[in-house]
């Protein structure tokens, strides 16, 4: 059989890597499919009040919001309950102090000790108050509830999340509604998709050159009339095909999970969001190949490629955290992948695709030029 364009090396590369590729594809489908299946349960959290924590609930007793009503679940075998009150949150130092550390640091006060399961108490409204309940058990052991705070009364998870710049950064600064299906997929999957698959692109890209060097097959390969440029081209094409496969299967996982979860899945936009990552992944693969050509130490090339993927991700993420950092988006390749825009149906950023293709072409030319001049290590 003669492969298209006589790309024997490309097909041999796929033949040698298909198992690993299949396993990684399966993992990706499992993640995207499994995560999407969780969506209906996730929706139920939408209205959940943050003033309720494990075994404890806080609300205002009156309309003026200066008297709290704290209730907690009765625990079988409880001898009595101690309500701790603090206006500095129960941070780790507070807990340490409480458990027998320096009493001078003990800034909490005991608001109640007894066998009841509720407390009504007037508070200073100018401060935020935190409460937790310690439960003394008959066998001498002690347990506790979660922590609630007056600040969170009447606020939902969604409302709280929206205040958080971290959440905003995960959705590309767009504050997409996480309880919509698009928003859920965007924040819960797409926000780290490029990082996850980017690592694989780096691994695959470095391996395209390093495998033959490390396994000492490069000498035999290059003793045939195969040119070095052609070797890079066909190996690069294998990277591109592998990344396309991963992008597609990731999207398919979401489609299947969405249908199973009974959601009206916006299939085109979901696939656009996944496949839109492809030019970025190809650029990462090309960059990793370049590093593999540049460095004789292939472990160093692998490490550096992974580090770069992480740096690209962090820079892009950071660019959404503050206006001052916004320009970082232009220097990191991850900034050219607007998954939130794509999943919301905005497919207009062809400039991003062009930028990644141009970057890939530039890297490929440089890699070919360097590889041509390289002395192959024995």
């Amino acid at each position: 059989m003669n492969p298209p364009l006589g790309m024997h090396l490309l097909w041999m590369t796929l033949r040698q890597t298909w198992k690993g590729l299949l396993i990684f594809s399966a993992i990706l489908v499992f993640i995207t499919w499994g995560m999407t299946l969780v969506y209906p349960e996730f929706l139920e959290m939408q209205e959940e009040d943050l003033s309720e924590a494990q075994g404890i609930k806080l609300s205002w007793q009156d309309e003026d919001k200066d008297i709290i009503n704290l209730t907690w679940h009765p625990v079988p075998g409880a001898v009595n309950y101690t309500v701790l009150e603090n206006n500095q949150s129960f941070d780790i130092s507070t807990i340490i102090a409480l458990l027998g550390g320096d009493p001078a640091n003990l800034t909490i006060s005991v608001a109640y000790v007894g066998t009841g399961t509720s407390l009504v108490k007037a508070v200073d409204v100018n401060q935020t108050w935190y409460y937790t309940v310690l439960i003394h058990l008959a066998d001498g052991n002690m347990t506790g509830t979660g922590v609630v705070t007056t600040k969170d009364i009447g606020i939902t998870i969604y409302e709280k999340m929206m205040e958080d710049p971290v959440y905003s950064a995960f959705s590309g600064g767009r504050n997409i509604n996480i309880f919509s299906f698009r928003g859920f997929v965007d924040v819960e999957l797409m926000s780290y998709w490029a990082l996850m698959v980017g690592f694989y692109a780096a691994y695959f890209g470095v391996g395209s050159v390093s495998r033959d060097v490390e396994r000492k097959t490069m000498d035999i390969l290059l003793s045939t009339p195969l040119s070095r440029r052609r070797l890079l081209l066909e190996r690069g094409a294998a990277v591109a095909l592998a990344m396309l496969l991963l992008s597609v299967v990731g999207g398919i996982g979401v489609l299947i999970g969405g249908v199973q979860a009974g959601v009206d899945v916006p299939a085109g936009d979901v696939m656009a969001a996944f496949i839109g990552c492809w030019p970025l992944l190809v650029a990462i693969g090309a960059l990793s190949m370049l590093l593999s050509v540049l460095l004789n130490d292939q472990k160093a090339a692998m490490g550096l490629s992974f580090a770069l993927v992480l740096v690209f991700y962090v820079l892009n993420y950071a660019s959404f955290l503050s206006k001052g950092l916004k320009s970082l988006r232009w220097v990191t390749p991850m900034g050219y992948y607007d998954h939130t825009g794509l999943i919301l149906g905005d497919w207009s950023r062809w400039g991003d695709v062009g930028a990644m293709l141009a970057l890939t072409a530039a890297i490929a030319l440089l890699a070919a030029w360097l590889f041509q001049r390289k002395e192959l290590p024995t």
Partner: protein
Amino acid sequence: MSPDLTDWAPIAAPEGWKVVVAMVIAKGTSAVGPGADGPSGPVIELRGLTKYYGRHRGIEGVDLSIGRGEVFGFLGPNGSGKTTTIRTMLDLIRRTGGECRVLGLDSEAGSKEIRRRTGYLPGEYGLYETLTVEVFLGFLLDLRDARRFEGRMRELADMFELDLGRRIRELSKGNRQKVGLVQAFMHDPELVILDEPTSGLDPIMQQRFYALARSECARGRTVFMSSHLLSEVESVCDRVAIVRDGRLIMVERLDELKDRFGKVLHVTFESDVPRSALEGLGATDLRQEGRSFIMTVRGEIDEVVKAVAAHHVVSLTMETYHLEQLFFDLYNGGGHDGASPSQGARTEGGEKR
């Protein structure tokens, strides 16, 4: 002209593999390029070839000219520059200075064409472990656009008793070496460059390789092989070059070399034999340790053997010079005047350098 390897019907071979070798030779119509059939200049020509790795010297000032149809041995201890020379010829590494022409082409500018017409067995190499031998060799033929030589590939595999259906990861070291040899010869190259070709091969397979190398040369192919075993090049080569510390210290016809260095004979007798019984027979460097004698024999050995046979022999061994010994002699031995490297170094024409 394309070779026709399909109409060949295997016949019962009374002489076993030798027939196969003969048929491989008879069938081969080569992948040779233009002008290959004519004796158009040297196949390998190195002039002052120099290669430095940074400040570390690989080879320096290597001059060599190898003609069509030669089996050329390239000898030297490990790290002497053999592999560096070979890898420079194949453009895997780049020369620092001098000239390097292979098949009439510059090794760098004409690299692709050289590689098309050359077969190469590296000294250290890996194979694609997960593939079967057949798929791997087929892949290399594909890269050479030379599927038409599949028949020759099978014949070579038969000759080396290599099972094409086996997975490479299951192969022993010797079988891996056979894969390496088959891939170097299978596309019927004009020039075959082999780095330590018999490494890992058992003696029978070594002999088959020697026969193959000789027969390939008989039909105008050139074999350039490196080795650190003088006995190996003795079996097959017409000429040898000896390289040491990156410099070529000698290029000589093998028969001349043999005459010059001879063989070392160890003999132990049952009873005491006077030293005088072995003196004056053409053996030199005669040393006696009790009833054992060690001597170097150059040229005809008949007279010495007959003299030895006149007594009751307990053991008799004869060793070809080991390369280490050869170097020792080249630098220190051969009497007080010693054959210095410069005395030993000759060019093809036999003139001293």
